[in-house]
């Protein structure tokens, strides 16, 4: 084999017979990248374990010498943390349910019929993805003021679930397209109606895609800050967790540890869910991406 002059190409190319030295270099690079990826998160953990009087320290130790769970207890008992989580859960779960109901049927129409306005509709759905979030805030806020929906769960649930429709429809349409039409046609010959063929055959077969869409809508609403900040404003009793955490972080000098503890508690279930479902999430994303 000829010697590789281009060091860069040597390093990045994949061959079965990689030399031990090259393998070591690759591992070192990946370890370095992993440290960069994980260190800020470990810092949050470390700050959350600091006792109140040692909050501001220049120590870089990952587990502080006098580690304590005091911050976690403070957040759970003295702050509204549980309320924020409850509010987020209530809003997010209902959003995801409504979003799936609204988008699963529309996506079926897009997948199986060539009705007038179909192309325009699909392009419109795609175009909505380009609207900056902040752009819709102004009219939504003023409309919400006029409809007395500011500071209510209802306003947020409706806004989130409609906002989730375009992306969900694209993903579901892509999935329905892969289901052979023969299945429904067989059912239609057997006397089923179009609608019952959809509910009995297509929906059960699409469970994975529906789960992806549910998860997407859930994550979208769960992590949203902007709309919640605009529509909930000062209604602290229905604040979602991003608003609460921002308030804690704002009191950096006094509440850094509490912010960190709250972050860890929000993060762990989300990260677990994400890692567990990442394979499906990604297949959904690429499906939507490649199709779109």
């Amino acid at each position, binding site marked *: 084999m000829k010697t590789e002059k*281009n060091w860069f190409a*040597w390093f*990045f*190319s*994949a061959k079965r017979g*990689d030399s031990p030295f090259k*393998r070591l270099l*690759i591992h070192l690079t*990946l370890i370095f990248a*992993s440290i960069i*990826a*994980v*260190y*800020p998160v470990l810092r949050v953990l470390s700050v959350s374990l600091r006792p109140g009087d040692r909050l501001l320290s220049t120590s*870089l130790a990952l587990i502080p010498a006098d580690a304590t769970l005091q911050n976690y207890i403070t957040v759970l008992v003295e*702050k509204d943390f549980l*309320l924020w989580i*409850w509010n987020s859960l*209530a809003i997010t779960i*209902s959003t995801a349910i409504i979003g799936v109901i609204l988008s699963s*049927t*529309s996506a079926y*129409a897009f997948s*199986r019929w060539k009705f007038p306005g179909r192309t325009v509709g699909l*392009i419109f759905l*795609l175009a*909505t993805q*380009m*609207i*900056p979030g*902040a*752009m819709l*805030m*102004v*009219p939504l806020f003023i*409309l919400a003021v006029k409809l007395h929906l500011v500071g*209510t769960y*209802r306003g947020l649930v*409706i*806004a989130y*679930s*409609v906002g989730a*429709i375009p992306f969900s*429809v694209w993903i579901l349409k892509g999935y329905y397209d892969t289901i052979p039409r023969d299945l429904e046609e067989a059912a239609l010959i057997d006397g089923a109606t179009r609608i019952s063929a959809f509910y009995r055959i297509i929906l059960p077969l699409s469970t994975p895609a529906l789960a992806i869409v549910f998860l997407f809508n859930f994550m979208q609403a769960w*992590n949203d*800050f*902007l709309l919640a900040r*605009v529509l909930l404003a000062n209604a602290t009793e*229905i604040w979602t967790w*991003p608003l609460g955490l*921002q308030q804690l972080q704002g009191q*950096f000098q006094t509440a850094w540890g509490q*912010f960190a503890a709250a972050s860890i508690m929000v993060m762990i279930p*989300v*990260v677990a869910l*994400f*890692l567990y479902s990442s394979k499906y999430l*990604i297949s959904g994303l*690429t499906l939507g*991406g490649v199709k779109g």
Partner: protein
Amino acid sequence: MHSLTFDVIRRSLEEVGSTVVIIFLGTVLLEGLLYVVLGRVFKSKYTIPFMLLGPAIVGLLALIVYPLAWEFNLSLTNMSLRHFGDKAQYTWVACQTLDPSKIDSYLTDCLIKNYANVFRLPVLKQAYFFPVFFKTILWTVSNVFFHVLGGLGLAILLNRPMRGRGLYRAILILPWAIPQVIAVLAWRGEFHFEYGFLNIILRDLGMTPIKWMTDPTWNFVAMVLVNVWLGIPFMMVILLGGLQSISGEFYEAAEIDGASNFQQFTNITLPLLRPVMTPAIVLGTIWTFNNFNVPFFINQNELESSDILVTALFRAAFQYNRYGFAAAFAFVIFVILLLYSIFYIRVTGGLKEVYE
């Protein structure tokens, strides 16, 4: 302080539950109506698809199309906190009543005054539109560049049989997995001059600590750093998926033909990665351009030099309460994105599937 009491739970469940029920009932009603109108009266062959689409169409009309139309109307008015309920719009009629000696042009001084103002007045307190626009381009390009560079590098390294591959992947995906608000707020703490880890490390290395929060240049660098950290995993995962779909036979054939590693990369890997990479880059560009959380939170001292278009828009609307102006500003931003996507569609033909 509000605690989570049984009463609170009951009240929220009632409100959320009633919302779901209302939407469900509304859907059923709408379906019935569509069935009667389209199916019985017009006997349309598209009754079923329009029944299926009905609820989503109503939702999108009410919450996206109507607000946009309304916002367009708003962009032609002088609505602000001071003129919240006023009817004083910049209509043609209202413009005709103005004293002609005091205004130069009916068009730019009255009818589309807000649009003209976007370009001739500061969009924030001092910053003008074009500097903010170029800042946004710089922000988008540098982010997407590093996302693709880092994502592609890591994906190539991970795309080989090796020990600990799954573990590396799980760790490297972490910045994407944690909620963005948390990541950004945590980073914001770490840019603290005295107690953030970046400055602690710099000090330990004997270098001068950086004023991340007050120095305009470094604040911008901080924003880019955070967003690069956040965005690499997405690119990595998408590109890794693309790499894995490339059959090894291509490389074997190239090897036999004596192609060098670099030639293999440019002639096999890159072209075959394109179908995956192009949509990912376009998506990434739009997401970065529209990214709100990072520039908003990392810019703790509200430096106007660190504002990009979308954060400037938010401030114009919700901090300075210039609603009419903000609406015009929003449409200018939207047109920029639209032009970009039309350009993209023209160049790549990326929407072919839509027309099938």
